[in-house]
């Protein structure tokens, strides 16, 4: 449970930038006094969010490979949920979505964990694109819903490209 030397340098650098940013943000807020401007408030909220992000990644780094993979799995989960909430899905897509969330994400990250590059690099764009529309077609409308598999793919591959 210790950070590699490069990670320490990285976090010290990022932490330094954040400390400077926080100081500037707070100074601006203090100078505005009891007439806080929306812009400064927005800036300070963002700085706070960056602290949280850096904190989470730091925590994940402490737990090594497993921690990082778990963190990214949850980011994928959140991103896919956010994405699909905004898009149109049909009742017949129910099982497709279940498979994407509860089989797709764990399987993808398990493959990354065991470092099976040949499979995890094509799992979504090849097998996902094949299986998910078939599921939608079998369960619901004869028209397969390509939209959901597109989104699944974009979120998913986004998560793996980082590696």
């Amino acid at each position, binding site marked *: 449970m210790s950070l590699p030397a490069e990670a320490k340098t990285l976090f010290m650098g990022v932490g330094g930038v954040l400390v400077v940013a926080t100081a500037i943000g707070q100074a601006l807020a203090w100078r505005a006094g009891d007439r806080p401007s929306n812009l400064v408030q927005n800036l300070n909220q963002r700085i706070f969010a960056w602290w949280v992000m850096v904190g989470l990644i730091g925590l994940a780094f402490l737990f090594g490979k497993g921690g990082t993979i778990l963190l990214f799995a949850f980011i994928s*989960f959140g991103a896919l*949920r*956010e994405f*699909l*909430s905004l898009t149109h*899905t049909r*009742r017949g897509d*129910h099982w497709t*979505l*279940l498979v994407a*969330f*509860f089989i797709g994400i764990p399987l993808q990250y398990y493959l990354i964990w065991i470092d099976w590059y040949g499979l995890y690099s094509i799992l979504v764009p090849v097998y996902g694109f094949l299986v998910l529309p078939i599921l939608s077609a079998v369960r619901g409308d004869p028209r397969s819903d390509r939209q959901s598999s597109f989104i699944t793919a974009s979120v998913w591959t986004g998560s793996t490209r980082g590696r």
Partner: protein
Amino acid sequence: MIKRLAARVIGMSVAGFARALTGVLPNWRGCLPEARQRVYFANHASHGDFVLIWTVLPHALRRATRPVAAVDYWGGGVRGFIGREVFNAVLVDRSGATREPISVIMEAMEQGASLIIFPEGTRNTGDQPLLPFKSGLYRMASARPDIEFVPVWIDNIRRVMPKGEFLPVPLLCSVTFGEPLAVKPGQDKDAFLTEARDAMLALRPGRSAA
């Protein structure tokens, strides 16, 4: 004792699970979560509906708020335990064979409980946003003008758990609470139900209240 503890633990897990799955957040647009007797009436698309409302209520209010649920679904077995012990549901027989649902509901209101009801009477699986309301809401509101009737809109739960499906899909949901309604003097059943219906529809996301 053990039963109470089990009910508490299950209640917390159900709420935690609902939060983790749907990231549900309350939007108290027309009123605040206050400890007073209320009837929350909401759109009904899934068995998860009252769970979401119950989840977003503060702890103190949860205990005093009872969902009105159908005995044919929530009456027996594990669901019976959850319905009775965890949610303290007011169970009604929709066929009216044993007792008229409305009298069971009135009795619960007499006892001072806040209620969660679904005036459509059944889950809406069609394309229209709301089914026609049953008259129960009007009868409750005209009998108890002292109670606040709060319109509630639950968004997206239909996609999380459509009727007939067993496993929920994680999608973001929201619960919006509107301004309390009351039956105005001389207002008849249809006028009140229309007003209630419009109040609910106005809470749909993307439609700001006037």
